[in-house]
């Protein structure tokens, strides 16, 4: 069992990187874990990069601020440039395929290349690309049970958006599958 996961999620503002992190910590709370969600905020929300540090742990969390991470979920090139080096050796880096021009070259970490945007379009809602990535992440680091992510989603989605629950559920599943596929095809890394 994983006891602590320190994760950076980074991309453009508007790609849902912050809510992806929130979803994760809500789900973790349902499992009675300790959590911390620390956004980098700023005028960056106007087109620049946005990121959040998420910590999920069985133990009390000291510093919510970290400079190295167990895992990174990357949704654009500037974030890749900034965070690819910040993953602990042996760690995990998942990135959204269409937004990355220069994929990372490290060999001491696991790297998954997920076509989340493409998949989201296929699922009929480009909003869920982040959930696809989250699904992929949970496949490799099962810090929370996917059903708790769905439960969390059902709690946080406002009424008029509850109809989006199924597509989010699908996205989560597809993310898992894509992760498995990506692992199976090292060429996509």
């Amino acid at each position, binding site marked *: 069992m994983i006891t602590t996961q320190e994760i950076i999620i980074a991309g453009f503002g508007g790609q849902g990187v912050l*809510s992806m992190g*929130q*979803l994760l*910590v*809500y789900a973790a*709370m*349902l499992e009675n874990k*300790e*959590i*911390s*969600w*620390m*956004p*980098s*905020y*700023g*005028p960056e929300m106007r087109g620049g990069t946005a990121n959040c540090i998420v910590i999920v742990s069985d133990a009390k*969390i*000291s*510093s*919510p*601020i*970290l*400079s*190295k991470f167990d895992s990174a979920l990357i949704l654009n090139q500037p974030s890749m440039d900034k965070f690819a080096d910040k993953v602990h050796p042996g760690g995990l880096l998942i990135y959204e395929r269409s937004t990355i021009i220069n994929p990372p070259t490290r060999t001491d970490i696991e790297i998954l290349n997920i076509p989340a945007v493409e998949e989201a379009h296929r699922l009929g809602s480009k909003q869920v690309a982040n959930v696809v990535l989250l699904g992929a992440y949970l496949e490799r680091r099962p810090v929370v049970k996917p059903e708790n992510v769905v439960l*969390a989603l059902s*709690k*946080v989605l*406002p009424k008029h958006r509850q109809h989006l629950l199924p597509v989010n559920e699908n996205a989560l599943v597809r993310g898992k599958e894509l992760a498995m596929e990506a692992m199976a095809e090292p060429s996509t890394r």
Partner: protein
Amino acid sequence: MSTNDEISEVRIMKGNEALAEAAFRAGMQAYFGYPITPQSEVIEYLMKEQPKHDCVVLQAESEVAAINMVFGAAGAGARVMISSSSPGISLMMEGISYMTSAELPCLIVNVQRGGPGLGTIQPSQGDYFQATKGGGHGDYRLIVLAPASVQEMADFVFEGFRLSEKYRNPAMILADGALGQMMEKLTLPPAGSLPYVDKPWATTGKPAGKDRRIITSLFIQPEKMEQVNLHLQEKYRQIQAEEVRFEEYGVEDADIVLVAFGLVARICQKTMQLARKKGLRVGILRPITLFPFPSQRIAELAPKLEAIVTVEMNAGQMLEDVRLAVEGRCPVHFKGRMGGMIPSPDEVLEAVEAIAEKRNFELSR
């Protein structure tokens, strides 16, 4: 994504929102504020939830107006809060000085960002001097509480109101942008648990047969003004005697003690874990009240220590209070980051190692 959903009894909230919700629960009767990053969620949350509560929530035209509305409402006996971030707090200096002089309780929240100037909106502890020594004119002090978690962002609202009313002096919660923006689990204090105190001095309309109440900070006769000052100084001494709060970790056997407040104290906890793994006996003293400052405890510890390292997100402000407490009885070092940068546990560890090995290290970088 709404962060105020009751997924369970325990909530996950942003620090700013936890503080806002706690304010309602602490029986806040009025809030006046003006938006500024990174604390705008406070007023946004209050505005959204206001219909559920019997509390005035007003967006003022400026921080100057807001603090003077606070003056009026506090003078009228209400439990009042105001929040802002560094530049906005600077604009309140005159008003705050007035409130200390007129002995009005209120809770001022500063979710600090990097300065000086417009600076950056990233977290900072650069307003320590302003908060603890008095950024406004004249001899006054605020009661300053420094939370280190979302839980404390909520809890200290209660404590802040309580102390400010007990001493008829403004209290300040000195947080930083990261504390305001981050989300953690917390248990919200129950509503109604902070009783209202009697305020016979408040201007609520002159009671028939009794003297009118006057709220003023003007004492034109210097003899009188000096009396007011002596009274204030006496009050501050009492606060110093009775309200010091701090936390310690591992100081019993420590060779090196890190002194840090707020979020930085938590970063230092991680440093301490890492250091102890390496065999370095590191402890932490975390002042919770910045005024009154735990000078006495630091003075006690100092002679037994190899060194104290003050760690701050500024150029070394609390450092002066630490040095005043230590009075040369052990070396006091400083490790700081500035302008919105947050020290990482690793870099604090580096500094500690350097000190332990009596090497030089970069004070701040």
